[in-house]
């Protein structure tokens, strides 16, 4: 059957083959190949029959390389689609073949991770993602190298924690396959904690998130489009796999991320750094949805994954175009661009309204599902936090739009997005609107949709809620505009732990080397002393006894420790006395 034929090759293979071919083919052909390979993932994911394929042995364990269910299907569709758009955008933004090859290997490993049917394959691709994304960041050079290094270290730690959790899981369950247990080995809190924290590094738990705003603003603008999509969303997917029935603490963490990310975003001037904080904020909504764990909440979380990928990549593309055309990263040096870049401006507005959850745009649909479910479940704290995050989101995008496109001016000639960039942006923007106006198009591919959701998108209450959030955002911007202007760079948690790690590591290294040196000195001194003592025993004897042999005396033994006959007999008598004494007195 034609449909079954789709399962003959796991989809990550096409993407990785394209990544391997890219460096050796011409730029245009290579990028076309990249677009085709990633786009091919979409129909495969859409049409492939549900089930587990490619059950084989990896490192001697039973694994499944190609697992299709509602969740992986959704992830595959959006990963493949946005991969194709991002490759197109890369081509339009002068990305080198090598960079796109790294980007495709990153996208391919992500596709492999979401189609994994077991924990071992998942973590295998998970670690490969960390490697390939680090390469993608490093490829740009300059400041990206150090940031990439921090990124790699943090993801190495996170990956190790996940690996530990999975090994433990295997010890408990006896199989890596997802089908063998519900989520990660239930029952042992330590495994859950390991898994949550390990995956939490990837999704940017508050406190573990600093790599995100640190890394994503640094590389090439097209690389940022890739980066904003895959790592965090694979994390959300893995979080669901680990906690399919949710966990309240995770929901609270998601809510905290939503508020924290939005708040930090408001304070940023670097455009991509602002967007990076919004990744954390938006992923917070998804994590909250996964954490709440009901059917609607989970569907909302995955719907938000889908929508977020659309509008966040669109945002990175619009900001990328600004940076591409002006060379400026900071809001301080751009302004009034809406006249010069109308297409980009429109795309930005669509994306901003989507991310804020304005009625009629796709963010409104999926964010609303999570909010409603939090409200319905009477998780009031989470609900209020998520609402506050929404206000912060509006506020920061009004700020971004205001400074980038409206207020001020930019000196010098600026052109709008080039043709292919426009194609990429407009295509994605159109989807944002379509999915906003026709929520059922999204619901059709959401997991858990047997006979429709118990959720109506466009009710009066929901629309009012969205509008109120927007108005609050506008009011807040009006109030906070001046204080925000005066704000310098706001330190994040990495201002503490980067120096801590640096000086801590240096301290450890110093301590180790100094200790080693001290031990070495002591050993050398001791050895020297023993050598001297062995070579000059007479001197030692002189020093030890204070007795000096008569000069010119017996050459064989200058120090006289010899007992003469009288002394010998005296010694003998003494020993006998002691011996007899000991025996008679006891």
């Amino acid at each position, binding site marked *: 059957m034609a449909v079954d034929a789709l399962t003959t090759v796991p989809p990550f293979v096409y993407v990785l083959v394209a990544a391997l071919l890219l460096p050796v083919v011409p730029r245009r052909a290579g990028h076309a190949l990249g677009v085709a390979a990633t786009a091919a993932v979409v129909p495969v994911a859409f049409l492939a029959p549900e089930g587990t394929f490619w059950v084989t042995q990896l490192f001697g364990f039973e694994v499944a390389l190609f697992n299709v269910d509602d969740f992986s299907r959704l992830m595959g569709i959006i990963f493949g689609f946005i991969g194709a758009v991002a490759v197109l955008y890369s081509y339009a933004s002068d990305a080198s073949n090598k960079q796109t090859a790294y980007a495709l290997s990153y996208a391919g490993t992500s596709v492999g991770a979401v189609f994994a049917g077991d924990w071992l394959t998942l973590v295998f691709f998970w670690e490969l993602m960390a490697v390939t994304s680090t390469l993608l960041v490093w490829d740009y050079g300059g400041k990206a190298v150090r940031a990439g290094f921090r990124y790699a270290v943090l993801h190495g730690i996170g990956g190790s924690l996940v690996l530990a959790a999975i090994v433990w899981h295997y010890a408990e369950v006896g199989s890596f396959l997802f089908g063998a247990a519900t989520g990660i080995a239930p029952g042992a809190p330590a495994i859950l904690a390991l898994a949550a924290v390990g995956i939490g590094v990837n999704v940017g738990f508050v406190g573990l998130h600093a790599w995100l705003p640190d890394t994503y603003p640094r590389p090439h603008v097209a690389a940022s489009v890739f980066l904003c999509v895959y790592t965090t969303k694979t994390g959300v997917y893995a979080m669901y796999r680990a906690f399919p029935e949710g966990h309240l603490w995770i929901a609270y963490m998601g809510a905290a991320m939503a508020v924290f990310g939005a708040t930090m975003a408001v304070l940023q001037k670097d455009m991509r750094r602002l967007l990076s904080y919004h990744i954390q904020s938006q992923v917070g909504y998804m994590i909250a949805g996964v954490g709440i764990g009901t059917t609607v909440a989970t569907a909302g979380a995955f719907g938000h994954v889908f929508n977020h990928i659309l509008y966040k990549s669109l945002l990175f593309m619009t900001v990328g175009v600004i940076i591409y055309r002006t060379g400026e990263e900071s809001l301080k040096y751009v302004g009034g661009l809406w006249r010069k870049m109308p297409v980009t401006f429109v795309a930005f507005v669509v994306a901003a309204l989507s991310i804020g959850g304005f009625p009629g745009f796709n963010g409104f649909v999926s964010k609303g599902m999570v909010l409603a479910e939090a409200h319905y479940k009477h998780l009031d704290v989470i609900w209020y936090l998520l609402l506050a995050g929404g206000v912060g989101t509006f506020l920061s995008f009004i700020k971004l739009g205001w400074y980038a496109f409206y207020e001020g001016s930019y000196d010098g000639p600026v052109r709008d997005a080039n043709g292919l960039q426009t194609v990429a942006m407009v295509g994605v923007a159109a989807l944002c609107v379509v999915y906003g106006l026709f929520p059922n198009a999204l619901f059709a591919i959401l997991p858990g949709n047997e006979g429709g959701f118990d959720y109506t998108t466009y009710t009066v209450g929901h629309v009012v809620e969205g509008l109120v959030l927007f108005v609050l955002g506008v009011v807040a911007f009006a109030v906070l505009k001046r204080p925000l202007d005066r704000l310098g760079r706001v330190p994040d948690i990495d201002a503490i732990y980067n120096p801590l790690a640096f000086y801590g590591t240096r301290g450890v290294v110093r301590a180790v080397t100094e200790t080693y040196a001290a031990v070495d000195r002591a050993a050398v001194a001791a050895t020297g002393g*023993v050598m001297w*003592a*062995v*070579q000059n*025993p*007479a001197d*030692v*004897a002189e020093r030890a006894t204070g007795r000096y042999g008569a000069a010119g005396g017996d*050459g*064989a*033994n200058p*120090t006289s*420790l*010899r*007992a*003469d*006959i009288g*002394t*010998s*007999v005296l*010694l*003998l008598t003494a*020993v*006998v006395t002691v*011996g*007899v004494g*000991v*025996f*008679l007195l*006891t």
Partner: protein
Amino acid sequence: MSSLLPLLVAVPIAGALLTLVVGYAADRLGWPLAFASSLLHVALTGYLVVRAYATPDPLRYTVGGFRPPFGIELVVDGFNAAVVGLVAVVAVGVLVYARRAGPHSVAFYTGYLLLVAGLSGMSITGDMFNLYVFLEITGLAAYALVATGDDGRSAVGALKYLLVGTVGASLFLAGIGYAFVATGTLNMADLATKLGEVGYGSTLVRTSFALVVVGLGVKTALYPLHTWQPDAYASAPDSVSGLISALVSTVSAYALARVIYSVYTVEFLSSVAYAREFVLVLAGVSIVAGSLLAVMQTDIKRMLAYSSVSQFGLVVAAFAIANEAAVTGGVVHLVGHAVMKGGLFLAAGAIAMRTGARTVGEFDGLGSRTPLLGAAFAVLSLSMVGVPPAVGFVGKWYIALGAIQSQLWPIAAVILLSTLLTLAYFLRLVERMYFRSGTGAAAGADSPTGTGTATVADGGDDEDPTLGRDDTPTLGRDDDDAFAADDERFGRPSVGMVAVVVVAALLAVVLGPLVSAFEPLLEPTLETLL
């Protein structure tokens, strides 16, 4: 066939008399006669040792038909069979060595045979007073042998040995006297039961134990009772040093063990407060002090002598620990040490004859000057340090094992420490022999003992032109010239001398793996002793 037992003593005595009488008439017959006696003695011993290990019961002989406990009894069991065999074999080896190395006098051959008789007697007697008699025979023969050296140092050393040794023997005699007063018997087996009947709390019994241990401690040369030993060993002729270092202290240590096990018994050791501790402290102090003193020596023979103080501390400690592993280790180390230390003294003598090197400093570059003797010396040194699989390692291993089994941690620590110190004083020699070039080949060529008649050629000749040349590294043809010069100035050890040293070195290595075969032979005896 246990009627052959008295011949172990009688043959050397008869040989001594014959050598004395014939030797004064015909000087040249001295060595052959002594050698023939020794060979006969070895054959006899070999036969009896095989018999002793073949039968489970000890071989016994009642001298003169007087029944024990009144008569004198000779006994050979698994314990002393090893010692008897050792005495015979080492004696023959030394005699072969002495053929060239000297002393070439009838007095030496006679004294030598008397010493062998005394040692054999000490080894096999089952009577306390008889033990004292043989102890005195041994002592007197040893004093005389030390005095056979030509210079004053030998005479002084012998005199010191005589006086200190006699006081020690007297203490031993006094101890026997106390025991006799307490029990009315002198037979060892009888004493063992009677002492128990009198009670270990008895003042007489306790005093006798202290006196006997100290008396035999003098003969064994435990610190601080060792003072006679370095002077005697260092001043005696090389052959005599080898002989008495290998045998006299060894047999005395055996006698100490025999008295502890067969007279006072292990029960006395464990029931009387401080009895075991007294011996262990004496032994432990010996181990450490002997090693430290050895490290400080510059004269090779004195260093070897102090090394013996340390090693006998080890052996006596093993006997005091008195469990199976420790006693096995004690016997192995007793025999092994005799082979190694005798071999080292003989090797030192041969090296001195060949190169004139008698101090640590003069051992520089010896490995290239006398490769074979140097190698033998190095092998014996390393065995003494306790490098596996040599016998020195096996002995120390069992003793340390026994100490640990009895949870005597200080002794175990002392054994390890002594190994380090042994390493210090032997390794510096090996280092000098192989990793330094020889400078001024044996400036002090005049033998301090002045014994080996062939060794003292023209040693005092400071104008020797080779001296200047030897300052440059001796390589290539210069080397040969230097050796040729050595040959002119010094004697050349005979094939027999070198062979004895090499055999000793080989034995030191080969005996190690053989211990596992020896252990089951020793086991039945240990069961009765412990």
